[in-house]
């Protein structure tokens, strides 16, 4: 009897744990989809250092709202564009 009582809840709780893990994975997937870079979505804001006109400056993407921006990444200095 005692064994039966302890076993039963264990068997019931297992799927619950499994569901929770699945839910967490779904949440992560949902977050990933929401953060995906897509046309028609807001460009993620960032702030970083830049070299411009002989000076080191701090630059924030959102300061360029109201203007068209061409954002270009490249592998390394001393390579082509």
């Amino acid at each position, binding site marked *: 009897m005692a064994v039966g009582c302890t076993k039963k809840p264990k068997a019931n709780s297992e799927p619950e744990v499994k569901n929770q893990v699945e839910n967490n994975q779904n949440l992560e997937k949902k977050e990933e989809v929401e953060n*995906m*870079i*897509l*046309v*028609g*979505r*807001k*460009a*993620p*804001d*960032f702030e*970083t*250092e*830049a*070299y*411009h006109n002989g000076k*080191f*400056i701090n*630059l924030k*993407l*959102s300061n*360029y*709202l*109201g*203007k*068209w*921006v*061409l*954002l*270009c*990444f*490249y*592998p*390394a*200095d*001393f*390579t*082509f*564009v």
Partner: protein
Amino acid sequence: MSIDTVFTHKMWNDHELSKMVDGGIPFPMLSDPGGKIGKLYGVYDEDLGLDVRGRFIIDPDGVIQAMEVLSPPVGRNVSEAIRQIQAFQHVRQSNGTEACPSGWKPGKPTLKPGEDLVGNVWNVWKVDNAFD
């Protein structure tokens, strides 16, 4: 933007790029230490430890209108990037009443999406228009 520091950007601009472009690079050269911004934009290659060639056109509302990603060995066509900006600017100025079809560049005809255009694109747009 690359993973290089602003110090390296300065050296590259002052000692090489300024020999190709009078006065050096006219726009800011951004630094992305550790590829943190590249990761945000999906262009950071973990294995290489570098940002690959990603290019994003962002409109005045901060919305991404176009993107292009190349692996490192092939360079971009700058004229094509400018053509795309001109096309998106044209569409925005028309408040979305005009569309720029394949091969459009300033001076070429646009399309006016609507009931009348359905099935009639062949009348107003020719395959030759897709090419320069």
